[in-house]
């Protein structure tokens, strides 16, 4: 049913429709509304049989999910930012053990400096842990991806992270079509584990593996992700057949067929990019964009096919590899290796800095005009940078950097205003 609802609520209701048996979570902005809704649904008897466990840390949250999943229960949790890092050991553990846990990440920047707003640094930090990673472009997709996630996770015995931009999506009120129970039941069968803790058939799970077999175990993890590249489009197709709309999949293209310049991005910023593409297409620009949904496994072949006839690519990314530049753009480069297509990286939106249509348009036009550096930081406040570097060069005891920058913002604003 179509309802005007907060995306977090839509996610919670959709997760509930997937009949999770154990939900455990520790609160962290901006994921709180999701788990609060689930707690309410369990307490009110709307979601049952389900155990909702209030844990004492994110590390405990994922650990509880690990135990529950190993014992054959469908398990769900959610976190963001610092919380994801705090459970990092368990993140690798869940993937290594092949447990089909689904976890929502309310994408949020990682400190220091502490920042509660949206960027992709958190999920990026876990990109190689062996989890499948989906990025939601819209509120609708944020909800739908959870159904797809459980299906993919359980088929492949691999945990799945559903990444939803914090505040931008999680706290946005939009029209979302929430599925109904029998529809989801038809799409998502009950959990049939490949391994399960059961006194009737005892097994040992989690043994040490030495040099003689570790390489093979890791190769199988790699192989599993390659299988996912096949399976993900398949479940998306089935989703479309059953529910009549496109959700998930590896990637989506928008007006790329004849595009000279193609923009690539993850998540909600694609909406703004599509608006800019439409505006620019009213002129003479041949610009299009690609929204990648499955970031892990990374769709090398599909991306190469989608970008192959462009002259230049602009990667907009909400993440940064200090000292190198982009993270997503590195993967894009791999996809396009040997093609000679020029790739520009724009680091944008870090820590919740708004990404505006105006700035994006200027950026794309610069790329078209051949006036863009290969690596740019969108809307970087150069004067702040200058002041800071001067301060540091003048004295050793220059003070905490972030605090000084914030103070400079006020000083500079006062000068202008």
């Amino acid at each position, binding site marked *: 049913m179509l309802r005007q609802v907060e995306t977090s609520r839509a996610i919670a209701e959709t997760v509930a429709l997937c009949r999770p048996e154990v939900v455990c979570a520790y609160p962290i902005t901006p994921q709180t509304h999701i788990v609060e809704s689930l707690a309410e649904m369990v307490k009110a008897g709307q979601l049952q049989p389900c155990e909702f466990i209030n*844990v*004492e840390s994110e590390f405990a949250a994922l*650990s509880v999910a690990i*135990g529950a999943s*190993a*014992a054959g229960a469908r398990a769900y949790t959610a976190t963001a930012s610092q919380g994801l890092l705090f459970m990092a*050991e368990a993140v690798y553990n869940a993937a290594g*053990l092949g447990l089909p846990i689904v976890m929502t990440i309310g994408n949020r920047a990682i400190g220091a400096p502490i920042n509660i707003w949206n960027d992709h640094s958190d999920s990026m930090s876990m990109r190689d842990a062996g989890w499948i990673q989906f990025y939601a472009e819209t509120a609708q997709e944020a909800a739908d991806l959870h159904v797809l996630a459980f299906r993919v996770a359980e088929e492949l015995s691999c945990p799945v992270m559903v990444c939803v931009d914090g505040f931008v999506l999680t706290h946005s009120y939009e029209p979302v079509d929430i599925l109904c129970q029998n529809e989801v039941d038809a799409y998502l069968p009950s959990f049939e584990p490949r391994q399960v803790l059961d006194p009737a058939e005892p097994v040992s799970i*989690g043994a*040490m593996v030495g040099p003689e077999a570790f390489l093979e175990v890791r190769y199988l993890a790699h192989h599993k992700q390659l299988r996912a590249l096949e399976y993900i489009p398949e479940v998306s197709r089935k989703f479309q057949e059953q529910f009549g709309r496109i959700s998930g999949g590896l990637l989506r293209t928008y007006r790329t067929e004849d595009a000279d310049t193609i923009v690539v991005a993850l998540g909600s910023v694609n909406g703004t990019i599509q608006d800019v593409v439409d505006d620019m297409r009213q002129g003479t620009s041949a610009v299009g964009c690609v929204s990648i949904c499955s970031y892990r496994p990374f769709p090398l072949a599909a991306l190469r096919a989608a970008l192959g006839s462009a002259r230049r690519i602009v990667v907009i990314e909400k993440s940064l590899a200090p000292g190198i530049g982009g993270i997503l753009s590195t993967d894009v480069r791999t996809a396009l290796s040997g093609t000679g297509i020029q790739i520009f990286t724009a680091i944008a939106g870090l820590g919740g800095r708004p990404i505006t249509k105006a700035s994006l348009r200027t950026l794309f036009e610069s790329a078209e005009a051949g006036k863009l550096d290969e690596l740019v930081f969108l809307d970087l406040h150069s004067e702040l940078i200058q002041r800071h570097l001067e301060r540091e060069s003048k004295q050793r005891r220059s003070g905490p950097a972030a605090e000084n920058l914030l103070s400079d913002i006020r000083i500079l604003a006062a000068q202008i205003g």
Partner: protein
Amino acid sequence: MPQPLVKFYQTGTFTVGNRLLQKEDASVQSDELRPNALTSGHRACQGCGEALGARYALDAAMRAAKDQIIVANATGCLEVFSTPYPESSWRVPWMHSLFANAASVATGIAAAMRVKGRPEVRIVAQGGDGGTTDIGLGCLSGMFERNDDVLYVCYDNEAYMNTGVQRSSATPAAARTATTPAIGSQPGNAFGRGKSVPLIAMAHRIPYVATASVAELRDLEYKIEKATRMQGARYVHIHVPCPLGWGAEPRDTIRIARLAVETGLYPLFEAEFGTITERNPIRHLMPVEDYLRLQKRFEHLFQPGADPQWIRSIQEIANKNIQEFGLVTEATHA
């Protein structure tokens, strides 16, 4: 355990169990058809107290749970020596996740059993002192606070043995470890440190807390079986000598464990909802020297130049335990 103390007991034999007892009063270990939840073939050191303790504890849990148990194990000696790839010596469903999360993993398993309508399956979480008193304390406290239906068993050999005998918060005063070497003006582990997780467990007012020792088999089995039959969060702390880490003879494991109890250094008691309900009186009070002398980790206390105050301070610890827990009664003979 609440049974009349038998004043006459056998020593110097390997006899376990008594043919004249009723089967249900006999120890689980005396049964030739015992579960052997931890079976032979594991790679523990000769004389390993933890291997012994784990078999004692889980076999008792199996009897009480009619074989319906699932085990979550923390990283450590037990986990490593029991599952040398590609073998496993566990005959029960068993899972190892991480070092710090055995309690949380057990919570998850228990939740799964509840959801699936299988309350008869009892969940046991286990770990060494490192994984319990230090890195795992947060998860343990969370499990206690929620009163999750988990029995947590800690095998306390008083240091991080698996990684090479480094100090933990369970390491006793003056003990030599790789990170508290026996040098300088205060050799070995510092005095005045350490945590009592049994007391911390009691502060959470969970349904059942007990301490046990591999030297007291029937008492250990009694406590584990009792705990297994209860609901909610339960904690049993078992003292397990480590011949390698303590610098003791493998054949002295039981003797050393018994001396720890008989000196008062390791009190045996039970508590329910935060109040002590039973304590085991010391049968034959021993001076701490008799315990310390058998272990090279304390040998610096006996060398020329050693300050006699160190042993006196350890004796004070023992005396304080005896006083606080009421370990010396009319039944005790000095």
